């Protein structure tokens, strides 16, 4: 009963629209309820991916590091006087800029790799999900559907020919 009470508030908790007291109460409940933790994880994944929440954020500490790098570069540029010093600063500035650029790349590289172009639906994955739900049907063809599912699992297990999809 208590779990159900908190479970109904998980969506708002993830959206950040609960009051401070309720947020605290949900957080306390999450510390002891594995089931609700799983639900929160699913909700976060779903809402973020659907774009209901804000877009992907940079990793924690990214922006302070970036601002720090910019400040350091400005200060270094101001302090530069002689050619040697100037060269040293330039090198440091270049290194900082490179580090910043690399940080940007590293921060957003996973997003690029998981982008639309890299992800493909597989018909046999979709059919396996469909077959799994069809298995519940008591009058369904369990033999055929079971085979469809086992073929998918065979592919996942690295069977050389398992799970092949029959094409037209």
């Amino acid at each position, binding site marked *: 009963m208590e779990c159900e009470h908190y479970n109904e508030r998980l969506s708002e908790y993830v959206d950040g629209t609960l009051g401070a007291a309720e947020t605290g109460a949900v957080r306390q409940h999450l510390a002891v309820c594995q089931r609700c933790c799983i639900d929160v994880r699913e909700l976060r994944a779903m809402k973020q991916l659907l774009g209901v929440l804000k877009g992907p954020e940079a990793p924690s500490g990214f922006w302070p590091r970036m601002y720090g790098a910019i400040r350091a570069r400005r200060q270094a540029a101001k302090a530069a006087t002689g050619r040697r010093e100037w060269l040293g600063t330039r090198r440091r500035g270049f290194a900082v800029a490179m580090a910043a650029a690399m940080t940007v790349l590293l921060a957003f590289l996973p997003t690029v790799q998981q982008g639309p172009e890299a992800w493909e639906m597989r018909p046999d994955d979709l059919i396996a999900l469909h077959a799994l739900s069809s298995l519940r049907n008591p*009058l369904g063809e369990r033999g055929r559907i079971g085979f469809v599912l086992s073929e998918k699992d065979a592919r996942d297990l690295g069977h050389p020919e398992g799970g092949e999809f029959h094409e037209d």
Partner: protein
Amino acid sequence: MKIRPFLLLAAGMAFALASVCTQAGPSAEAILQKALSASDRLAFEGRQMVTMWLSDRKTEATITYEYHHGRNRYRIEYLAPRRARGRLVITDGKSRWQYEPASRRASVEPAGADDGREAFFDFSLALLKSNYRFEMEPKGGAVAGRRADIVHILPRHTGKPSQTLWVDSATGLILKIERTHHDGSLTSVSAYTEIHFKPSLPASLFTFNPGRGIILTAKGNAGSRYDLIALRRRFGSAIFLPRRLACGYRFCSAGVTSLRGKTAVQMNYTDGLNTLTLIQVPQKNGRLPARSSRIIMVGSQKGTLASGGHFEVLTWPHPSAPTTLSLIGDMSEAALIRVARSVSPESPNR
């Protein structure tokens, strides 16, 4: 002339006897009802052959030797096709194992809760009765040496597959299923070619003990199940639902699952015999591999249609949301597209 009353009496008795005999046999509905629960209470082993007619007019035969102890415990040993030979699928009701001898790898995953089965049976039978009519073969038949009642399940509306069941007269177990596509072509036949009913089977058959050198990997849970109210409460307008379903289909269940690393919401609809699945993935332009599909228009959107056995898979991007949708079912292309065109985000006011 004196013989006439005797003849009339004899004819009357024959008619009465014939009526009694006809009424004495169970009705098709009673046989189906018995068949629904038979697999829950029986222990048996036997050889099953499944023949599938594929979309390229080829056939594929699967032969298994199976042990069943109630619904939740079974062991399936694959004998054919060659690529599946030696494959083992075992469940003890709590876990499901699959072993692939070619790669010497095995997986284990939770078997999944199977609660609310009786209510689901009632729901399925009620839908079945409203969408299909039943016809019994008067003579019955035999499968694997056992007497069987033959029931044809025929659609009341065009465009749906039909099915014929051979149901063991003594136990109610379905011994053979013949399935016909909505265009009348055979899609699959599964039948026991040998069957032995047992009082019980040893528990050791339903657990998997990986031998030396076999890599066993644990798979995650298949996902969470929701009813429609819970799903709406949970995801609100992030959920896409069909506004128009194919004839006779009703919402059956929903779940959140994982599809190649992406969280996917899955909704299942049934007409009592067939299932239609809608899968939505929060990914713009998720697409089917071009080699196994063809381009098809869903409204103004370019989608892809693939056939896997006799399942059709229609995938298309939603025009205004970063979401890719898929419909999977044994249904005509036109009917799938009609449903697909009606899929829209859930209104918060519904």
